[in-house]
Each structure stands twice: as C-alpha cells, then as structure tokens.
C-alpha cells in the first residue's frame, strides 16, 4: 500500500476527507495526496492545510461527466501510486465512487460515517437495512474506494508543509453536453446545527404549519421535516429533510409531529438527546423511540401547545 488519494469537487468536503485520510495514514504510515480539478481556490486551500496537492489545471474535464472524472482519477491513482481513494458521499461523489471502483477493480463502500484502522485494515461504519442497523465493513482488495458521508469528520485545520504540483492527464471526448446548470435556492437554516428541532411529517395539515413554526420559534428552534413533506408536498425545502437521504441531526431536543417513524427517517434523528413524539396512532413506531410519547390528534394539540408556549 502506497498512499491515500482524496478528491471532492467541494472544497469543504475535501477538507473533511483530509482529516479522515490523516487518521488512516497515522496508523498505516501512508502518504496523503490531494487531487484538485480546475480549481485554484481549492488547490490553495488544500496547500494551506499542509497537503501534498496535485492540480489538474486548464484541461477540460466536465464534472457532469462521471465517466470522464473517473478516468482522470484512475490516471491519478496510477501516477501517484495510491491504493486508497477517499471521496465524499455527496451525490456526485457517490456516483463517481462506483464507476471508479469498477475501473480500479476495487471494493467500494459509500455513505461511510466513521472509520477505524485495525490490523492495517480500514473498518468502515455505514447504515444498513435502510438505517435500521449500522454495519461495520472492510474492503479486502488492495485498492479501495471509500466515500465518506458529509460532516462525518471535522475539516482539516491550517498547517505547514503543503506543496502544489500541476498534473496533466489524457482527456478524451465527452459524451455529455451541459445545456444548463441552475443553482437551487439555498436554505439559510442549517438543521444539523440546531439545538432544538420541531420535525413535521405527513400527519400535519398545511394550515397547521404556522403553528409548528410558532412552537419552534417559542423554543428557539428550527423546523425540519420528513422526506415527503419536502419532496411530495413541497411545503419545505429539501435542506430540511431528516433521515437516510436527508440530514443526520443531533439536537438536544426534537419534537416530532405526525411522523410514523420508518427506519429511513429514524436514522436521521435517533442521536437526538431528548425526543418528544406526538402521533394519533398509538402503534406508530415513532412513539417507541421517544422519551415523551403523546397519543393525540395534532389538529387539537397544536393550537393548545402553541398558545401555552406562546
């Protein structure tokens, strides 16, 4: 094993990868190398974090073309003699991970939330069975592709010793043409940072959203939701989704209103310190994972709760 290569198109996530790579390197004595593609800003930032940075600069590599990015990474792996590749498990990174792993004939794990090095092997934890369980897995092939869930590691802090080299690779013609790229309206609220969350599910009526918001405000918290509230009903932006495909939150208090508690949801909130759940179905699973469980109709309870807290 010769080294660890990290790559993410998002600088913030690349910094998290750097922390994770150093953790593995400390135990395995591997070199950590960083690849940047056409981003001076990211390259400089990585150098400032003390990283041995390689920059593919000025060559046209379409980030939307996963096959092209995977080829570039494959070449970098060869040139830099690295065996472990760390990617971010955001959407781009996950898509890339499978393609790169296939090119490298590597084992691959995605959505990895924590790492441990034991006996030279990197043991990875990830959610399994929709989030019902956490499985610890390790890759047995020499070449490994590991995609790390965003925010599972702290970003690396500044340090000396960084270096920067440009790297050139072979670029083929792309089969993918980008006609348009629109940014999504970002949400100003980061539900992962919130100490108190009021989480709404499909047991809510839209008219009562104002009450939920008022309860959140009274407690100094933020509103979050189950997936269908954002993707089907579109009452809230997708940034507010808690769960397997949303965010993993660890608030001090979560008040969960009208959510059934399916595994893919629970995985995003089970680390909350205190959970309050209100549901009109006494058999709803969410009530079993609550510290305070209330069987009640939200239409009746919300006005009263909002008024009392008011």
């Amino acid at each position, binding site marked *: 094993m010769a080294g660890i290569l990290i790559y993410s198109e998002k600088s913030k996530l690349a910094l998290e990868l750097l922390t994770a790579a150093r953790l593995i390197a400390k135990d395995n004595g591997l070199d950590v190398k960083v690849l940047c593609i056409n981003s001076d800003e990211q390259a400089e930032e990585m150098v400032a974090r003390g990283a041995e940075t390689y920059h593919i600069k000025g060559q046209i590599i379409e980030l*939307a*073309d*996963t*096959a092209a990015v*995977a080829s570039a990474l494959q070449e970098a792996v060869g040139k830099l003699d690295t065996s472990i590749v760390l990617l971010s498990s*955001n*959407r*781009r990174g*996950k*898509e*890339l*991970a*499978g*393609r790169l792993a*296939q090119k490298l004939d*590597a*084992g*691959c*794990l*995605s*959505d990895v939330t924590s790492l441990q090095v034991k006996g030279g092997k990197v043991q990875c934890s990830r*959610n*399994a*069975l929709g989030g*019902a*369980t*956490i*499985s*610890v*897995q*390790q*890759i*047995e092939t020499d070449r490994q592709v590991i995609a790390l869930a965003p925010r599972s590691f702290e970003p690396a802090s500044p340090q000396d010793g960084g270096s920067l080299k440009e790297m050139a690779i072979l670029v083929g013609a792309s*089969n*993918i*043409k*980008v*006609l348009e790229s*629109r*940014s*999504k309206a970002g949400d100003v609220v980061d539900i992962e940072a919130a100490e*108190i969350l009021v989480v709404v599910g499909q047991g809510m009526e839209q008219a009562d959203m104002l009450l939920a918001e008022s309860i959140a405000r009274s407690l100094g918290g933020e509103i979050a939701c189950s997936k269908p509230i954002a*993707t089907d009903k579109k009452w809230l932006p997708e940034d507010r989704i808690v769960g397997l*495909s949303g965010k993993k939150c660890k608030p*001090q208090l979560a008040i969960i209103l009208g959510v059934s508690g*399916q*595994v893919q949801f629970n995985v995003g909130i*089970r680390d909350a310190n*205190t959970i*309050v759940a209100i549901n009109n179905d006494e058999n709803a699973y969410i009530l079993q994972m*609550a*510290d*305070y*469980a*209330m069987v009640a109709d939200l239409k009746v*309870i919300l006005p*009263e*709760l909002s008024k*009392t*807290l008011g």
Partner: protein
Amino acid sequence: MNIIVAMKQVPDLQQVRIRNREPVIEGVPYTLGIIDKNALEAGIQLKEATGSNLIVVSAGNEEVEETIKEALAAGADEAYLVLDDKLDGMESSLTASLLAATIKKIEEVGLVIFGEGSGDNYSGQVGSRVAEILDLPQVGYVSKIELDGTTAKITRSLEDCEELLEVQLPMVVTVLGDINEPRIPSVSQILKAGRKPKEILELDDLDIEIPKDKKISTLSNLAPETDRKRVAVKSVSDLITALQAEGFVGR
C-alpha cells in the same frame, strides 16, 4: 429500441424486526426496492411515449421469479432474471457484473435505468459499475428524462444545483425517488403478468467469472443501542412540565 430497468428484490424493511440488536430477516416477505419502482415507472412512461420495449432485469435467489411479477403487471414487457440461491446477499461488484452480462445479451439497448439506491443496501454503486462495464455514459440522481430519437435530455438534481444535460444513447441513468409516483397494477394486470415472457438465466449462461474472494467483508451488523425514557404524556400541560424539567422551557 429496448429500455432496460434494473430492479432488486429486498426484504420488506417495514417488517424487519430487531431482536437483541440483531435484525431478524427470516420469514420477512420480499418486495421490490421502493426507488426501483420509480425506475420502473420512469421506464413505463418512456415506453409509452416512444413505443419502445421495456425489459426488467434482476439478479437474486429463486424467489425473484415471483417478486418480479409486480413489475410485469405494472407495465414491463419482459423480464431477464439471473436466479441462484447463492446470490443472496451478494456484493455490489458481483451484482454489477451479472447485470451487465445480462444486458449484453439484449440487442438495441437505448437506455438502462437504475434506482438511486437499492432498498436494503442503498449504496448507489451498482448503476455506476454497470455503466463502466458496458462503457456507457451515465447520469445519476435524475429527476427528469426526455428521449428524442438518438439523444436524451436529462435533468440531474444535486444538493445545490440542477443540471440539464444532453447525452447520446445508449446511456445509463439512476433516478431519484421523487421523479414520479409509481402506478399500482390492477388485479387483472397481475393475473396476466404470469403470461409475459421471462428469460431465466443461470450463472453458467453468463459470460463471466465469479471471483472466489469477496471484495468486502462484514464484521458486524447491529441496531444501535437506544435508551429512551418512553414516558406516556397525557396532556399539553404534562408535556410542558416535562419540557420544563428537561430545561427546554423557561430557560
């Protein structure tokens, strides 16, 4: 043109119970992955719009033959199934080589549709691996597909942006769970589904070598420990009292 949809049979997660932190899978009925049903629906809509033939492919244990009926009932025209009880719990790299070898047997493939993640594993690897084996362009996390002769216009939805892309066919896509609302087949469609053509393949029928060594090993798979108070709260005032006692109200 043939449109291919890859669907995985998974244990119905709503029915998986946890005992002593271990998941109990035995006896849990199989179902098709939830997002794979969105992949199928996307295929059905494109088939209807373009007059293509829709083929569902799946690899798994012998039960797949029964489970896949739902896809045939909903609108797939035929199924290519790789069946072997040894395939239970197989890893993504093997799944991908089986599916790719199966797809190679099909002519005039225009589009191969995957779910963004399988129901149980949700690792989002198989589609990308198959695209690489077949040497096809790919777009993941798709929220819209339009076919126009030999090209496709695809919308990829990322965390912070949406890309509108033009890609030459054939290609691979993986779709998001919110791309559509899957239709539910009627009873008469389910009854007729048994008569639709099924190509059953065994491992020997496929032109691949099954590696002896696993690429991934699982060291443990346990439900996280939870320790909740589970106090039944009867009224709003009881709830407020509890929140006060925890220090969340009146701070």
